[in-house]
Every structure is written in structure tokens, then in C-alpha cells.
């Protein structure tokens, strides 16, 4: 299960899933020290300075992701960011404790180490995947649960770092100034909000989408049992998603992605109730018809009653009608699905492009 979860994450990453938590990097900004105890303050500034290149590379990475750059380019930016984190981590780790107090240095190193792990999606090192596997009953739930646990862990680490910083400053009589609030920081904070909105809607949509995939896969192998179960869940998740959407606000007045999500969920709901259930019935009817055909063929022509022949002929007509209907609905569903997903992707790209400035 653990390996399957990892493989699943890679697939999701390829499909454009984004992890809001990595952008905590953007908002966990370290304060600068005032000059009361210049030497301890300098020590703190030195740590904050090591963090500088990370900020720039994080922004580059965010822009690449937001503007739908190619997977190769996004990966390049990510690797650059990882290198920056590594460099910062080694530089801070090499520093000596301040007057035998390593607390701030160690907290910063621990935080950077965690940042790297999350950036590399190496969740097994920070989340108990055995526990995740046990607690979730499929990969989708494992994925959501891991994200949630990684997020929690990252938030805690960020809070701990802030706390360690404040404690260190208090112990060594350093007055802290507010973190630098330059233009880039502001842009990063805004981008973080954009990603959070995108991510929230993505997850609502994704929960239903995976059920749709499961239903289609089961139908493809004529697994009527699996298709029925997945389809029932698809309807449930689509309705649940639509309800959850009600409490999601538009992003700074921009409701475009929310509307696209609503449209996609409505498509899933209708598809489940009006198309998938017909497809399942069609396969069931096809099996029934085949059994009937075999039964009538097994009977010698002279033994077939008029009623047998009439019943069979009616079944042939009914089956042909259901086949025609199946083809019609299937074409409709395919076209509507392609449009709804395309609309959502376009809305997502437009939303990102609009709210995350390209440099």
C-alpha cells in the first residue's frame, strides 16, 4: 500500500496537483533584529540572510507552477529551490551556537530540512505512511490524508520556528523588527492565497473525479458490481462537493474557478444519475439478452413455441433500442466530459495567470 500511495502521488503530481503547504515557505519569513544587542542580533540576521535566496527561488517556482509552464521547467525551478534550501541549511548548520544556545539555529535547520522533504514529496519521512495506509481504504483517501498530515506538520514546524526566534530574541535581549515587507514578499503572500483558493476547489473536484474514473474503469471491464458501487459514490461526492462549494467565497471577487468547479460537479452528478446508471443497466440487459439467445438457440427449431419466438423477437428489438440509446448517451457523456474538464483546466490557468503576476 505504501508504495502504491507513492506511485499515486507521482501520478497526481503529473496531473498538476499542487501542494499548498510548500508555499508556506513564502510566508514563513524571519524577522530582522534591531540593534540593542548588536552581536546577538547580527547572529539572527545572519540566519535570516541565509534564507534570502530561498525566497527568490520560491517565487520563481510559484510563477512557473501558476503559469502552467512545462513539467520540465517546473521541475527545473523546483531543483533550484531545493539547492537553495540545501545551501541555506548547510550554511546555518555550520554556525556555532550563540553563547551555548543552539536553539534558534537548530530550529532553523530543522525547518529547512522539513521544507526540502516536502518539496521532494518524500512524505514517508515525516508522515507515518503505515498509519496512513491503515487509516485509508483507497489511494484517494491516502492522498488526501497524507496532504493533510504533511500540512499540519509543516504548519507546526513553521510556528515552532517563529516561537524559537522570539524566545531566542527575548533570552538574548534582541528587539525584533517586523519581517521585511517588500514588493516580492507582498506578491508571494498574494500568490499563497491564490494557490490556497485553487487547491481548495481542486480537492472538491478531485474527490468526485476519481470516483468517475473508477466507475469508467469498472464499466470498461463490465464489472457491474464495481461500477454500481463507484457510481453511487460518484453521485454522493458530486452532491457533497456542490454543497461544500456553497461555503467557498470567490477569490477577491473572482468566482470564475468556483463556477467552473460547480459546472464540473453538476456534470458528474448528471452523468452519474442519467448516464452511468443507464450504462450499467445496458450491460446487465446485454448479459440477460445473451443468456436468452443461448437458451433459444439450444432449443431445436421444432421445439420453439410461437410464444418463445415472439418473446425472443421482442427481446431483440428491445436490445437494439437499448444499444442505440447507449451509444447516443455515451457520445453525449464523452463530449460533455471533455468540455467540462477542459473548461475547468482553462479556468484554472486563467485564474492563476490573472492573480499571480508573471515576474
Amino acid at each position, binding site marked *: 500500500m505504501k508504495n502504491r500511495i507513492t506511485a499515486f502521488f507521482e501520478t497526481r503530481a503529473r496531473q498538476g496537483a499542487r501542494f499548498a503547504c510548500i508555499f508556506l515557505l513564502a510566508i514563513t519569513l524571519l524577522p530582522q533584529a534591531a540593534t540593542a544587542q548588536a552581536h546577538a542580533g547580527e547572529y539572527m540576521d545572519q540566519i535570516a540572510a541565509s534564507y534570502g535566496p530561498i525566497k527568490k527561488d520560491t517565487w520563481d517556482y510559484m510563477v512557473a507552477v501558476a503559469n502552467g509552464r512545462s513539467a520540465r521547467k517546473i521541475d527545473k525551478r523546483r531543483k533550484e529551490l531545493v539547492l537553495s534550501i540545501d545551501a541555506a541549511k548547510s550554511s546555518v548548520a555550520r554556525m556555532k551556537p550563540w553563547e551555548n544556545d543552539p536553539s534558534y539555529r537548530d530550529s532553523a535547520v530543522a525547518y529547512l530540512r522539513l521544507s526540502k522533504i516536502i518539496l521532494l514529496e518524500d512524505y514517508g519521512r515525516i508522515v507515518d505512511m503505515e498509519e496512513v495506509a491503515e487509516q485509508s481504504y483507497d489511494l484517494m483517501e491516502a492522498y488526501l490524508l497524507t496532504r493533510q498530515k504533511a500540512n499540519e506538520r509543516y504548519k507546526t514546524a513553521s510556528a515552532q520556528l517563529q516561537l524559537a526566534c522570539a524566545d531566542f530574541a527575548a533570552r538574548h535581549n534582541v528587539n525584533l523588527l517586523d519581517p521585511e515587507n517588500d514588493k516580492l514578499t507582498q506578491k508571494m503572500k498574494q500568490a499563497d492565497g491564490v494557490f490556497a483558493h485553487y487547491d481548495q476547489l481542486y480537492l472538491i473536484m478531485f474527490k468526485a473525479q476519481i470516483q468517475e474514473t473508477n466507475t469508467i474503469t469498472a464499466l470498461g471491464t463490465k464489472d457491474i*458490481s464495481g461500477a454500481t*458501487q463507484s457510481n453511487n*459514490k*460518484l453521485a454522493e461526492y458530486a452532491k457533497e462537493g456542490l454543497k461544500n462549494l456553497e461555503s467557498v467565497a470567490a477569490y477577491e471577487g473572482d468566482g470564475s474557478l468556483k463556477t467552473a468547479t460547480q459546472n464540473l460537479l453538476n456534470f458528474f452528478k448528471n452523468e452519474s444519475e442519467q448516464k452511468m446508471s443507464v450504462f*450499467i443497466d445496458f450491460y446487465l440487459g446485454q448479459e440477460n439478452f445473451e443468456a436468452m439467445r443461448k437458451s433459444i438457440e439450444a432449443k431445436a427449431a421444432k421445439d420453439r413455441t410461437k410464444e418463445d419466438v415472439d418473446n425472443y423477437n421482442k427481446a431483440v428489438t428491445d436490445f437494439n433500442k437499448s444499444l442505440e440509446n447507449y451509444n447516443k448517451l455515451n457520445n453525449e457523456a464523452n463530449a460533455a466530459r471533455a468540455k467540462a474538464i477542459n473548461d475547468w483546466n482553462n479556468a484554472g490557468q486563467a485564474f492563476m495567470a490573472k492573480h499571480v503576476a508573471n515576474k
Partner: protein
Amino acid sequence: MIRKLLTLIFLLLTISVLQAQSHGQMARQLYQRIQKIHYAPRPCNDSLSETLMDAFLKEIDPLQVYFMAEDVTALGRHRKSLDDYILGGDGGFIEEVKDHYKRGLRRSDSIVKVLCSAPLDFKQSDRYIDTDREDNAWAQTPAELAQQWRRLLKERVLSLIFNRHTDSTGYRPDQLASLMAHEPEMRELVLRRSENRLAKRLENADKFIGGAFLKCLALQFDPHTEFFDLSEQKEFLAQLSTQKESFGLSLDENAAGEVEVSRIVPGSPAWKSGKLNAGDILISFSPGNGQEIEVEMSSAAEISSRMAESDTDSMCFTVRKKDGQTLTACLAKATLRADENLVKSFVIEGKQKVGYIQLPGFYQDWEAEGGRGCAGDVAKELIKLQKDGIQALILDLRFNGGGSLTEATDLAGIFIDGGSLWISRNSANERFTIKDPNRGSAYAGPMMVLVNGASASASEFLCSALQDHRRAIIVGSTTFGKATSQAFYPIDPRATDPNGFVKITSHKYYRLQGNSHQFTGVQPDIVLPDPWARFIEGEGTLPWAIQPDTVLKKTYYTPLQLPDLGALQRQSTARCAQNAAFKELDEIAGQLKALLEAQKSLALNGAAWFGWEEQRRKLLSKLDELEKERPDAAFTLHSSQFDAAFLQVDEYSRNLKEEMMQTLRKDLQLGECLHIIEDVLHP
């Protein structure tokens, strides 16, 4: 001539040595295989040797008529050495048993001939042979052995007299003398049959003894670790499959030792011939080679196994009908759709509309494309039933002995939205949680599962998961108690042409709270009266059954809410107490059980035996009458509308379903389930 004779002797010796090696080596391979895979293997030591010796002797001579105390003493020298022979692949002991056994068969043949040459003395105070008694002793002298044989022959003669010379008008004590006048002809028949059987046993002694040793060895580990030779393994797998070739008739032996047609499968070649009926007595059969075989010399099991052989394509059966006329039906085997194995569903229309699904086994067709299994078939029936607007569902797992665990997992998933189902544990103490393979369910309405003591294995897994999730109300009686799983292995893993297979218990299972229903069974939420429960023995009564224990493992699942089960039980108990039919059935079942107990010490004379047989006949016919006279329950049954068109065309399925509906209309437990559903839906 001498040279030829010497060659023959040399050949015979070679064959004998080869067999010794073969069975000895097979025993070693079998043990090694079990040791490696079994959930909790017993060590191969003196204790195993001793229990194996006892089981082996009981297996090959349960009536204690072939061996004498001197044989047992001679073989007893090896009592603590069988473990060494097994580990060393030494088959010398098995050869020694074969020699004693063959000598015993020849000795028995002489004794039977002598005993049957004169009228049997029914004045002697002999009693029925109760093989279950712990203090049964081996015959010390030829006279004691003859006495044992005399008991057996008397039992057979008395049984034949009663069944052949009394009729449904019943037996009266004043008929005793006239009945006993048939003793000479019945004794003659018993003699011919015994000679025939002893000759066949002698012919097959080598294979039988070797096979019996391997079977007993496997059973020393638990009741479900079993050795199979090639043909038995095929037969076992076919039982779980959905396709088989057959004539479509089942045979059974009646009390008189006659071979009787016990069932005709609707739509089968036997059914289509229109000549055969249940209750016909088989007189002779010809297995296609022109040779006519008299049935009197064969047992039902022997004929059935002959019928099942793959090279027997056609057979002619001559039967005596109930009115005395004789008929011959020549049948060609056909692929039965094995619908006996397939899921059947009905809509029950009473105060509520209730779906009913009967699942007799957890089958899986490994050869079919996509692997057709029972879980998928149940899901299809559920879709059909829901189109008919059912308000609740009854899943009937009574007498469902289990089958594929994968299917049980899939089936549980159909009813459970998601989550853990049960925990498996292997010999390395590795624990895994088995989960619902599909998110979502195919049916979310109220549900009841009907079980009895013969609901075993996969049935119990399904029940336990549904009970833990509080997804269904489990109704009936305590289930069998098997919470282990087995898999087949060739006994020699390197053999390209396996010489035998072993089914080994490799995993034990636990419920979501960490306890196991192994040994004890799943307790129903609502207990129903079950008159036949007294005849069903659970896992706990079997030798070497694996003991229950608990496991610590965190599982995640969200149980649902069920109505007040205590109140439902009280209402049901009160209703059943008022139901005279339950009471009558229970009385008859109780009397039948007591009668079976009484047989164990029955005196072997005409008055006692005929009196006992008459009592049994009366009870059985009373049971039939009760069933016939019982009014149909206050509900109607029909197939789903979805199947209506198909059933109109397919006579085979229509007949099968009609046959089932007739039984269900008289089913007391089903009737009570409907009352409980009413209590649930309209509290």
C-alpha cells in the same frame, strides 16, 4: 518358464520397493510443505507419531473388523517412530500396514463365508457397533473377531429385511416371524456384497493405505489441512466452479442399502429424458462399454464416482419405479450450468416488498474470462431487485459452507461503504487489514443475513464484517466457527508432474475488535429456533481445530446504527413460541436425535431393530406430512421484473426457480425473518 517367473518376481519386488519409497517420500514432502506454510504447524515428534497412529488405524478400520489385537501390537512397535519415518522419507511402516491389512481382508473373507453359511443367531445378545466409543477394543482371538463380524452382518441383514419386506403401512410386532423368514435370502445377498467389497478393497489396498496415511498426516495439523490425490484435487476445484459436465442425477443409498435416485437437476440430461424421478431404485447401469453392472454389488458413492469420471460420456440407467415397473434411460453427459451454485433472487410480497437472495457457496470461475464470481452475480441481482422497489433485503447463507475468500471480500464491499473488513495473520505473525476493495455500496437499504451452524468460512467472514459494521442484522443460529483460510500446493514444489496436492491452512482471521470467530462461530444478533441445529457439529468439535485468540491491531471503520436488537429478539422469541409449526418440528427433530443416540446401543435382534426402524420411518413420514400440510406462508414470491422475459424463454431456469419457490413458501425461518423486517420498518 522359471526365467519368466524370476523376472516377474523381480518386477513385483521392484514395484513394491518403488511404492514404499513413493509413499514414504510423499509423506516427507507433505510434512515439509505443511511445516513451511501452515499457520501453526505441530512439530514432528513422538506426540504427532502417536496421534497419527491412532487416527490412521481408525481411518482404515473404523469397525475394527480387519485388524486384530496382534496386528495392532505388531504395528504398535512403531508408535513413537512415525515421526522419524516421515522425516527420513521411509515408507517401510506403510508397507507393513499394507501387509497386515491385506491379511486382515483375506481373514475377514473367510470369516464372512463361514458365518453366512448358517443362519445368523439373533438370540445372542449382540449390540450395534458404535464406532465413537472410546473403549472399543481390538479382537484378541479369531473368535472375538468373528463375533465382531457377526454383529456387522446381523445389522446388515436386519436392515435389508426391514427395507425390502416392509412397506409404508408399517411394521407390527406380529409380523416378526414372517419377516425373519427372509433371513436366508438376505444373508445370501449380504454375503455376496461383502465378498465383492472385500475383493475390491484387496485390489485397491496399496493405493488406499498409502493415501489414507497421507490424509491422516495432513489432518494432524488442523481439520482443514488435507491431502488430495490428483483426481480429488480436480473434483474439489470443480465444486467451486460454475461449469461442470454431468448426467444431472444424484444417487444415495437408502437404509436397505439400495441405490436410489435422490435428485434430478432440472434441465439436465436426466431431467430431459423424462424417464427418471427422485425415489427410483437403480437396478443396473452400463458405463458405455456394453458391460452391464449390477448395482447390488456397488455402493452409491462408487457409482457416483464412476459417473463423474471424465472418460464416461454416456451411460444407461435401469431403474425400478415406485409402481414396480422397470425403465431404462440412456443419457449423454452435458455441461450443466451448475445453477445449483449460482445466486438466486426473488421478490417477496407480503406486508412489505422484500428482496431475497440465496447464496449456496462462494464460487469463482477461475477459467472464465474476467473471473466470474458470486459477488458480481449478487450485485446484479441487487440491481434487479432494487428496480422492483424492495424495502429490505434478506441474504440467505444457510448451509453455505464457504469458498473463495476473495469473493467474500468483494461481497462484503457491496454492502459496506468502505473501510476495514477483517484482519489476517500468518505464521510469521504478520498482520494485515483486509479492506473493502470498492468505495461505495450497491445496496444501502435495511438488510438481514440468515445463517445456521452450517454457514462456514467465507460465509462467516462476510457475517462478521457486516456485524462489526452494524450493516446487517444477523439472524439464525451460531455459525460453524472456521476463521482460517487455505491454499492448494503441490506436495513437491519442484515436480512438473505433481503426484499429489495439499490444502494448507496458512492464515487465521480476526474481527475488527481483534477477537476471532475461529472455533466458536459468529453469534447471531437475533437467535431463531433451529430444530436441525442439534445435528450440525461446529469447528470446535473437530480434532486439532485451531484455538481462538485475540490480536492487537488498530483498525478504522465507522459502524452504522441498528435498531434495538434486544427488543427485536424479544418480539421474535414471543412470536416463535406461539408458532406451533416450529414446536412440532422441534419435537420431531428431538425425537430423531434421541433415536440416533438409541441406535448406538441397539440390540441386534428382529424385534429391537424393526421396532427402531419403524420408529424412524414414522418420524420421517410425519416430517413429510408436516411439510406438506403446512400452509404456505402469508407471502408470495416472484422473480424480478428484469428477469421476466428471460424466464419466459428459459424453461431450465424457470423450473429451478419454481422448485426453490415451493420450498421457500414453507420455510419457517424465512417467515419469521419477514416478521422481524416488519418490526424494523414499522417499529
